């Protein structure tokens, strides 16, 4: 039996397409006439080139001709396609069709793995450009049929694993053929992402910024390898170089990552085609600025089930808003002229593709654009001119429908791929809908048939009385059983001029002729009504960022005159009473008495205090990542790559009077990553938050974190595990950086190494170190290492035992940025004392008070006040520790940190003495723009409440009207600190 099956399979395949030079052992060689002509159809040759009453001639899987007057060769199969529309079949260029994601690498050891698990390849297992999907490709018949039903004819597939994933493969979904014909191109693209490979446990990269750094170094190494300078064989880099000229498809998945991917590409002259996440509408100008071709999924979230108000409270406004706005994404992309293709890749079921697309059209997506996004654009992206259109010579991949493909009522009959027919719905089924009347045994009956195609359904009535009956319709025949109280009559019939005709089998076994007269046509009014229901839904406006308290319009730069206020200058003048301050063109223009300025917004500061904006030297808010812990040195990573402008803590910090922060890398390794120094310009994108001409900083760390003391018993394999080892990490890296820099300056060829470049910047005094530090021994050590390499440490952050070596610090010239009163959370902070800041200050060190905590950062004024309590510094000295002192430590003191004419207008108006626990920030101004206003905040609260109520109503409506809903979920945000580990 098995043998027979095998034989049958062979026969089928051979019959379908006999490969010309293959021997035949199952019969005689046959040649099939593969010519067909589709006449009288509306033909979309391309989305914009439409032919009415045209003929499509196909031959041997290709379009032989298309036009009004096509010469049809003899023997061709002729198909009457009048009232039918023919479209090119769709293309999805982001799939893993037929390629299974590999299994996760097992955990044979509990200890982390730092080195690569393979040899002969790149040093990082997550880089796998040599992967060829052909090796594991298995045509997936089931999936192919799903895609065919959705109208797809060709897909590009790849191995969805790793940061560099290897080449793509273009496959046609021809279920009647074999791989010899289906595989159109085995080198159609190269795929990349930010996600780690599951086939390895290698630690690096643990973070998004690590993945970005890895990509950069990989490109540099590939160039070095291509120039023949490498002694070893590297199959990964060879493959990468070979695939260089292919289209590079990058899976990003959300707006922030789209921007990050594009940034990396731009640095190496590569324009990625980027797979987005469907949230592009939230920052459409940014998306536009990439100039990238996009591949967009259309997977909309379901409404949340908000019927339980207690659960509904847990859903964030941003999540609810996304439900409302997501369907507008494609329309927004199209309106902004962004070139995009569509993908089914994140849909649970391909079946929902059309419904979602129709929704997008309802929300304003132009139908031509929709068709282009499924045909010509993906074809153009992948560089294959023979798909996505029906020009002569193109693949005969096309759809036959009864009308507009994007209309909900339209039926897709057939999907032809490479000239091979796949029937989705039988094209020849008659429409028998309507009302018919007939008589059985003298009784009058009415049969009403509704629905479409094979799904046409019939119900029987007699007058008003409903009659039990069973109806079915297939192969153009109806079967009807009527049950009159156990008396069954069975009917089989077909359409016959304006009615139905057939035979009836009575209860007693006798038979007769049966005829039904059509008395009414289908009820069109009802359908119209249904259509009218689909009015354009209400779309809520987008804010920046698109969460509660986001800005619907960005604040404008104003000329502001603050009158009669107590000014804490953070300069030598100290505190000035009853003073006026003028802010103009984003700068502090004038400080004095009785100032006036035409057209300035006047703010009465009577009884209030004006200070420079607070600067937090050590923050971890507004970032998507903190630690890259995959190596003991990660100077190559930068927080600037992962700034997250959508963090509500930006707004909350503004409400605490903070205007500038340094977002530091965490303390997972002795040499951490580079900082991002930003202003809290709420609503701006990541790039605009970062200081222009920003000072260059890098985070170092000492102590328990870098030696992984508190990470559990399995974390004992990474060097260093002791403070002794930490010193050697530094000496080693600085020595290498020194040698690297010397080689680079010598003019001889060198392998560009980002990590060593950054370290060389430190040696060349172009980049400054902020070092996480606790106990005196290690503090002393790092200063000695720096002195040995002839540079200075700029800042010790935390520096909890700074008071023990304040004299040495003063001599070295390093500043201290510390907590006011934290201690006792680790062994190394046993001797941390709240008098630390005062002692260091008294020793002549520039001291700042920092937060390292999203909660404390919004009341740093209170933390400064503690320095008055602990150690008895003056209030002015204490206040300087959160303004001008951190500005000095960050080399920003020429620009901000005090109230001085000419500096940036970064100021805060307080309701009370700024060191008092009773003080509230009333206005927080950055460069003359009011980013926080306590009065506007009240309006925002009201707006949040109203919008929540509105969305809840909309969702309730959705549920009542039968829409699908999902259980409420609460967005969980992480509190990042130095110690935050990411997996």
């Amino acid at each position, binding site marked *: 039996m098995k043998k027979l099956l095998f034989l049958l399979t062979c026969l089928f395949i051979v019959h379908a397409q006999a490969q010309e030079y293959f021997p035949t052992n199952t019969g005689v060689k046959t040649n099939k006439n593969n010519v067909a002509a589709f006449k009288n159809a509306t033909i979309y040759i391309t989305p914009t080139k439409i032919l009415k009453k045209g003929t499509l001639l196909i031959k041997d899987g290709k379009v032989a001709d298309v036009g009004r007057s096509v010469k049809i060769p003899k023997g061709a199969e002729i198909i009457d396609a009048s009232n039918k529309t023919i479209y090119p079949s769709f293309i999805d260029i982001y799939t893993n069709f037929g390629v299974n994601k590999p299994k996760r690498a097992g955990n044979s050891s509990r200890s982390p793995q730092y080195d690569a698990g393979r040899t002969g390849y790149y040093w990082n297992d997550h880089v796998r450009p040599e992967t060829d999907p052909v090796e594991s490709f298995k045509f997936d018949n089931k999936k192919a049929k799903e895609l065919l039903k959705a109208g797809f004819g060709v897909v590009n597939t790849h191995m969805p694993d790793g940061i560099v994933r290897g080449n793509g493969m273009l496959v046609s979904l021809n279920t009647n053929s074999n791989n010899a014909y289906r595989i159109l191109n085995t080198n159609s693209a190269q795929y990349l992402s930010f996600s780690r490979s599951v086939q390895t446990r290698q630690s690096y990269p643990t973070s998004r910024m690590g993945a970005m750094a890895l990509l950069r170094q990989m490109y540099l190494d590939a160039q070095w390898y291509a120039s023949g300078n490498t002694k070893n064989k590297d199959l990964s880099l060879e493959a990468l170089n070979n695939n260089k000229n292919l289209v590079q498809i990058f899976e990003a998945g959300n707006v922030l990552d789209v921007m990050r991917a594009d940034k990396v590409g731009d640095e190496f002259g590569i324009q990625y085609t980027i797979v987005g996440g469907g949230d592009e509408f939230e920052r459409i100008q940014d998306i536009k600025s990439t100039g990238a071709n996009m591949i967009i999924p259309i997977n909309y979230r379901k409404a949340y089930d908000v019927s339980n108000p*207690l*659960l509904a*409270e*847990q859903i*964030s406004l*941003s999540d609810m808003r996304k439900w409302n706005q997501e369907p507008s994404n494609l329309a927004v992309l199209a309106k902004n002229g962004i070139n995009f293709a569509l993908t089914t890749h994140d849909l649970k079921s391909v079946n929902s593709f059309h419904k979602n697309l129709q929704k997008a059209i309802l929300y304003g997506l132009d139908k031509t654009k929709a068709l282009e996004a499924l045909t010509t654009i993906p074809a153009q992206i992948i560089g294959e001119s023979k798909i996505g259109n029906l020009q002569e010579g193109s693949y005969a991949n096309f759809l036959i429908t009864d009308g507009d493909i994007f209309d909900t009522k339209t039926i897709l009959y057939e999907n032809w791929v490479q000239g091979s027919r796949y029937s989705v719905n039988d094209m020849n089924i008659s429409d028998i809908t309507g009302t018919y009347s007939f008589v059985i045994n003298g009784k009058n009956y009415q049969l009403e048939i509704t629905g479409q195609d094979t799904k046409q359904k019939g119900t029987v009535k007699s007058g008003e009385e409903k009659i039990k009956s069973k109806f079915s319709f297939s192969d153009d025949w109806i079967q009807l059983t009527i049950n009159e109280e156990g008396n069954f009559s069975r009917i089989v019939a077909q359409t016959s001029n304006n009615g139905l005709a057939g035979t009836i089998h009575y209860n007693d076994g006798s038979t007769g002729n049966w005829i039904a007269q059509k008395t009414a046509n289908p009820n069109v009014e009802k359908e119209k009504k249904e259509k009218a229901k689909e009015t354009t839904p209400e779309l809520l406006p987008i804010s920046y960022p698109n*969460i509660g*308290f986001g800005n619907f319009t960005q604040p404008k730069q104003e000329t502001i005159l603050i009158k009669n206020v107590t000014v804490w200058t953070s300069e030598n003048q100290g505190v000035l009473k009853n003073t006026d301050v003028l802010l103009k063109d984003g700068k502090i223009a004038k400080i004095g008495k009785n100032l006036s300025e035409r057209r300035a917004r006047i703010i009465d500061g009577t009884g209030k205090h004006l200070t420079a904006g607070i600067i937090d030297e050590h923050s971890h808010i507004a970032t998507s990542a903190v630690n890259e812990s995959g190596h003991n040195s990660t100077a190559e990573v930068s927080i600037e790559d992962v700034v997250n402008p959508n963090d*509500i803590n930006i*707004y*909350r910090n503004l*409400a605490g009077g903070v205007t500038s922060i340094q977002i530091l890398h965490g303390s997972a390794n002795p040499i951490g990553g580079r900082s991002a120094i930003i202003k809290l310009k709420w609503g701006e994108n990541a790039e605009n938050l970062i200081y222009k001409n920003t000072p260059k900083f890098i985070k170092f760390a000492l102590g328990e974190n870098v030696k992984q*003391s508190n990470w559990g018993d399995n974390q004992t394999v990474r060097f260093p595990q002791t403070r002794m080892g930490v010193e050697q990490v530094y000496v080693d890296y600085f020595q290498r950086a020194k040698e690297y820099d010397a080689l680079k300056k010598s003019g001889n060829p060198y392998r560009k190494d980002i990590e060593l470049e950054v370290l060389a910047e430190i040696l060349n005094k172009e980049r400054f170190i902020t070092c996480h530090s606790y106990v005196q021994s290690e503090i002393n050590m790092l200063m000695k290492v720096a002195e040995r390499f002839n540079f200075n440490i700029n800042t010790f952050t935390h520096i909890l035992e700074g*008071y*023990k070596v*304040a004299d040495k610090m003063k001599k070295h010239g390093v500043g201290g940025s510390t907590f006011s*009163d*934290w*201690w*006792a*959370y*680790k*062994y190394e*902070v046993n*001797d941390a*004392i*709240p*008098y630390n800041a*005062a*002692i260091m200050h*008294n*020793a002549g060190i520039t001291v700042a008070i920092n937060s390292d905590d999203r*909660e*404390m950062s*919004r*009341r740093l004024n*209170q933390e400064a*006040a*503690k320095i*008055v*309590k602990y*150690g*008895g510094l*003056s*209030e*002015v*000295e204490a206040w300087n520790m959160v303004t001008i002192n951190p500005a000095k430590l960050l080399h920003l003191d020429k620009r901000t940190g005090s109230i001085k004419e000419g500096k940036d207008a970064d100021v805060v108006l307080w309701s009370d*003495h700024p060191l*008092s*626990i*009773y*003080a509230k920030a009333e206005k927080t101004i950055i460069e003359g723009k009011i980013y926080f206003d306590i009065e506007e905040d009240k309006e925002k609260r009201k707006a949040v409440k109203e919008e*929540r109520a509105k969305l809840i109503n909309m969702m309730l409506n959705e549920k009542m009207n039968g829409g699908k809903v999902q259980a*409420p*979920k*609460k*967005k*969980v945000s992480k*509190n990042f600190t130095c110690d935050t580990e990411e*997996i």
Partner: protein
Amino acid sequence: MKKLYIHILILFFVTSNIIAQQTPAPTQKKDFAIIGATAHIGNGKVIENSLILVKEGKLATVADARLVKIDLSKIETINATGKHVYPGLIALNASLGLAEVDAVRASVDVDEIGSMLPHIRSLIAYNAESKVVESMRPNGVLQAEITPRGGTISGTASVMQLDAWNWEDAAIKVDHGIHMNWPGAFTRGRWWLGEDPALKPDKNYAKNVESVTIFFKEAKRYLASDKELKNLPYEATKGLFDGSQKLFIHVSGQKEITDAITTAKNLGINNIVIVHGNDAEKVADLLLKHNIPVVIDRAHRVPNNEDDDYDLSYRTAKILMDKGITVAIGVEGQMERMNTRNLPFYAGTYAAYGVDKEKALQMITGNAATVLGIDSFTGTLEAGKDATFFISEGDALDMRTNILTHAFIQGRKISLETHQTKLWKRYSNKLKEN
């Protein structure tokens, strides 16, 4: 300003010469009086220009200096004109002395294994010699409820004063209450198993509540039996049913708080305190009906939800007080032991966001004592109560002015020295000499 610094430095040197660091103060031998200070009673009232007379460890007189006539010629007096006197602050739901260094497991005795542990007692693990405990005193935190953590029924708590040789000396109320964690109605997916980490309703909620009910029902049946075979956990719940102990239920959310109160009442447990109590304002009527106080969390925390008002966590006290609920402040949270010394500033923040300053103080004095059932002998500056109080240069709820000159526990003048002040002085001297 430099002068002030030196002044304070001298002050500390002088103080430290009188009483050695860490050594608990001896019993009060002589009467003494504080005159001229603004006395914050801890019940909402203030006496400007007060006279406070201390005898045998108790407050003998607390009155307006202009209204009482007492011969002070023979007793030691402290002139505190321009200064402020406060009752010793009481930290609720604290774990002081149960752990020294958070990251050093060997030093942590906070959370016993198991889930129904009323027999576990914080009292005996309390480290009277803890360096963290002594660091409370310079900020005015002089008494604390020491609470075991974890499990469903975490254990039995006791109240300590923070200047003692050992736990027996320290205890001012032994085993006053049992703390329990009410089952959560929400659960997070385990992201490390690939589950969605978002918060969603816990399907096991009802089952978990039932297991609590069953435990207490069985305990009650056991207590009514002849107890032939002793059952330690059940035995430990006795006080809940006879009214001598309070049940502190850690619970948040409208539904959960309601369930917790209803369940406890049905079981015959009448002395209930709600701890954390997010959303308690939504069940205010129920709380008022049964006269149940709420121990809210520290003000210094971020709001729970992304689109909460930025100051929502600062306004919790105001919101509950407006409903007439009795409010006190607990200190549980991240790095809570060392942070417990910031208790006055939690109250200060609540004051900044709508609560009257004296009412804010009351949350960490009078109300805290009521919650613990120790209000008969401490918590306010009222005659007959323990002489546990401190003198501050200014408003003790504001870090800017919380500068202590004296502190007393049961009339004993305690040291304001700590491990930290010792290091301050040592290294200040070292730097001066260099």
